[in-house]
């Protein structure tokens, strides 16, 4: 009897505790982000059709009606790549940096122009137009010729800025190391050298062994590339804010580099382990496909992990911010009331993302080192 009486008590406690509300809010907000996004995707599909029928009038009516806050669109706009770098403002008052569009098509060859020619998707230029997702398409819907878009997009520029910063820091460090050879590290070195030593001793040497020196430059470059881009991604204003390491193209290239490094350096033991494993011969039918799959799967998982972690971090932070405007669009007072909570959550997530920025760079590098170590390991 005592038990039965206790249970409802607990449930009521759980029902009315503020903790549950907070959890529910968080869960709901995440879900709403996803659901709103899927709504938006459908809507977008519908809109493109409309646009193609009467492109200018559709755009006009779009602007004429008061814009309803759409968190899904806002979040996707922030984490996706784009042809111009939006700084601030909405609609006609928005300020953004126009980036160069570089297109290659068989019929037109290489075409280069500023993304301002598109007028944020409202105008077509040289037969090209931007669709709702920000992708360059043919203005003439019937044209199915492939467009190779190698524009300097927001992510490309952000990545280049991060890479330049990284080069500036690393080469500057190398210079001052040469100047102070044999002496103790000083100033900024104290910040970076532990990272270098950490990658060298605890990642490369621990996983690869005595051949680590050969792969150390690659591992260091990958680690610092991811780390710097992760950190830049956390800066909300201009040089940062792009979702570079949360972009599947970027992580794909990184994973590809690891895939090539592992398989081009794999020794006979590595290949024997895949094609002639130490199991009874009849098991080869099962083992060999699994091993071959593993060769591809390892870098594939590297690609997905980094992409998913960084993108998720951006989505959660943007989601918490969206809460203010979601509640604000219901009732202005509610928006103000939610904002402290939202900001607190965002600050907490920001701190967590700082940790994740390092952690994901570390995990990617460590797993890469382990894969390389497995490929070059000498047996007996």
């Amino acid at each position: 009897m005592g038990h039965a009486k206790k249970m409802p008590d607990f449930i009521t406690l759980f029902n009315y505790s503020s903790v549950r509300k907070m959890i529910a809010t968080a869960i709901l907000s995440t879900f709403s982000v996803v659901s709103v996004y899927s709504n938006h995707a459908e809507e977008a599909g519908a809109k493109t059709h409309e646009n193609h029928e009467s492109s200018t009038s559709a755009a006009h009516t779009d602007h004429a009606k008061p814009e309803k806050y759409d968190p899904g669109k806002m979040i996707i706009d922030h984490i996706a790549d784009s042809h111009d770098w939006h700084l601030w403002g909405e609609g006609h008052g928005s300020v953004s940096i126009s980036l160069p569009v570089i297109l290659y098509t068989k019929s037109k060859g290489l075409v280069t122009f500023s993304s301002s020619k598109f007028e944020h998707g409202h105008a077509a230029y040289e037969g090209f137009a931007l669709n709702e997702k920000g992708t360059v398409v043919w203005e003439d819907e019937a044209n199915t010729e492939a467009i190779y878009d190698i524009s300097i997009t927001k992510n490309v520029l952000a990545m280049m800025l991060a890479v330049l910063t990284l080069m500036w820091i690393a080469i500057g460090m190398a210079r001052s190391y040469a100047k102070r050879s044999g002496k103790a590290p000083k100033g900024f070195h104290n910040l970076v050298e532990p990272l270098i030593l950490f990658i060298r001793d605890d990642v490369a040497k621990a996983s690869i062994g005595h051949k680590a020196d050969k792969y150390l430059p690659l591992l260091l470059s990958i680690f610092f590339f991811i780390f710097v881009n992760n950190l830049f991604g956390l800066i909300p204003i201009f040089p940062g804010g792009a979702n570079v390491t949360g972009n599947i193209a970027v992580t794909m290239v990184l994973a590809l580099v690891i895939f090539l490094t592992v398989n081009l350096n794999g020794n006979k033991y590595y290949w024997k382990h895949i094609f002639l494993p130490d199991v009874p011969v009849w098991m080869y039918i099962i083992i060999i496909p699994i091993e071959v799959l593993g060769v591809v799967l390892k870098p594939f998982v590297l690609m997905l992990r980094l992409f998913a972690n960084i993108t998720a971090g951006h989505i959660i932070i943007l989601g918490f911010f969206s809460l203010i405007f979601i509640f604000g669009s219901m009732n202005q007072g509610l928006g103000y009331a939610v904002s402290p909570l939202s900001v607190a959550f965002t600050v907490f997530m920001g701190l967590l993302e700082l940790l994740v920025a390092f952690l994901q760079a570390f995990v990617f590098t460590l797993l890469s080192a382990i894969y390389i170590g497995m490929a070059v390991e000498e047996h007996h």
Partner: protein
Amino acid sequence: MQLVTPAIGLVFWMLVTFSLLLFILKKFAWKPILESIRNREQTIEDSLSLAEKTKSEMIRLQGENESLLAEARKERDSMLKEAREMRDKIVGDAKSLADEEAKKLMNRAQDEIEKQKSAAIAEIKREVSVLSVQIAEKLMHQQLENNAAQQTIIENQLSQLN
């Protein structure tokens, strides 16, 4: 889904940028940095091992010094002992030599004394005989002046002869 579709442009630029980054950092950053870190570690290791070596060398030298000192002390002791023995021997030798010499001298002196003594005695004897002859002469002179006395003496002498 645009989120999980890698964009060709970004793949292209990423390949270009990352290859450049890899090349440039490898050549101009990681190599010199790792080199200088390794150098520093080598320097530290060398210095430590040198310090260790110096310490053990010092301990060894100290031990050597001590043993040298002990040896020197032993040598000094043995030298002192030797010197003492030598001295004792020299002194002993000298003493025995001196004794012998003294004895010899003494013997000679004694001989001389004996000789002198016997000579002196002989001299004295001679002197005495001369003197006694003289005395006897004198006495004779005196006695022979007196008849009576002469008589006595002659008688005495004669009696003695008997």
